């Protein structure tokens, strides 16, 4: 329970921390200036895989991202990550190691009314691709009358890809230091399959059991601003 509350509070942290600027009415020129944006390139990490690990011990992952802010509205985003799965249930043992990349764009719909406010409300799209090596050293098919059947499936390497729609918030909580989260609707395009073995979890996508999946990210980023004129 404490783990859950911890992760929930992390998710909600931006709600508490994000407010920062004092409001003053801006002139038309100042408004224009405020909405010029803060172009730059930022690098960050996603804390969501660590939160996920608290709920699902069998998964462990890391994820980093790079974001190129072109202007106030448009951002190009790339996310790289790794996921390891070690599952051991009555039905099967399963291991997987894989990497993924997501690339896409974010569109900022937030119009600011104060100078120096670089907060974003983002709508975006990602294309994701993953490659993983997985195996099933044991599976057990339960049959009450005749008795259970055991078997194993060897190691294989498979690739999968998917698309994601993104809704998120991103806020500059310190100078050039951003915190944000996003909720994602993911839909699978293709799942790699080798014989009967399908991935239990696709790195970057999540559980394979659904053809669409939800995900969230919780990112901390540092932005290297481009020189201002």
């Amino acid at each position: 329970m404490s783990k859950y509350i911890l992760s929930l509070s992390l998710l909600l942290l931006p709600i508490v921390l994000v407010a920062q600027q004092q409001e003053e009415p801006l002139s038309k020129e100042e408004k224009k200036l405020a909405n010029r944006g803060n172009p730059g390139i930022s690098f960050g990490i996603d804390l969501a895989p660590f939160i996920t690990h608290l709920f699902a011990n069998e998964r462990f992952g890391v994820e980093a991202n790079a974001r190129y802010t072109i202007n106030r509205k448009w951002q190009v985003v790339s996310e790289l990550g790794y996921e390891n799965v070690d599952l051991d249930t009555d039905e099967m043992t399963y291991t997987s190691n894989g990497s993924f990349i997501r690339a896409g764009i974010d569109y900022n719909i937030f119009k600011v009314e104060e100078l120096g406010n670089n907060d974003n409300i983002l709508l975006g799209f990602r294309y994701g691709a993953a490659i993983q090596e997985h195996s099933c050293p044991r599976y057990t098919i339960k049959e009450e009358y005749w008795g259970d059947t055991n078997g194993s499936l060897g190691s294989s390497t498979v690739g999968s890809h998917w698309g994601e729609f993104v809704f998120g918030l991103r806020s500059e909580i310190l100078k050039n230091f951003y915190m944000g989260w996003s909720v994602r609707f993911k839909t699978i395009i293709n799942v790699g399959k080798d014989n009967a073995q399908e991935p239990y979890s696709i790195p970057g996508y999540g559980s394979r059991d659904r053809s669409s999946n939800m995900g969230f990210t919780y990112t901390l980023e540092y932005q290297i601003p481009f020189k201002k004129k």
Partner: protein
Amino acid sequence: MNKILYEFVHSERFAIFLIFFEAYNTIVIPSCYFCNKANCMKTKIISPFLLAISIFALASCDSSSLCLSGQSAIQSGLYSATSGEAKDTTLSGIYLWGIDPITELDKGLLIDSADVSKMFLPTDINRDTSTFILREETVASDLYDTLMFVYERELNYVSGDCGFSYNLRLDTVIYTINLIDSVTIDLPTVIYNENLENVKIYIEP
């Protein structure tokens, strides 16, 4: 609990809830999200509690995926040999058990059952054949028949929670004809989560 929460956090309901929650905070009342106004503090303080309560309420409704058992069972219907498949028939005093050539399995599937019109025949998924003895014991007669189902097995991945199953393709049914008149294969595939009759067993009048 952790698994249920994990499933919930990755579910559509959670995402929809978050989107509506944040839409309320950011789009409907944007000034209450990115500002320090005093009257916004109420929203900021209360909303996390509302969110937490809602998550727990919704999570308690979430259920883990349902795994089905006995999914490699051949489903058979009993029919009268004289009336054909238009009319099913029922038998009483029915005994049914499987024959395992190695373990000499001696466990009844049906024991002195009445009004039997359908039978679920679990298959031995360690082998390509399953053999059953069907017996009808009445005051007037005591008849036995042997049924041997020959099939191909195909390993099928169901899900992470449920693991694997075997789908079957029935090739042949070999049987004796004391109680049974004939057996036909109507649907040769036995597939996970499919509830259809595979074979018709016609009973002697």
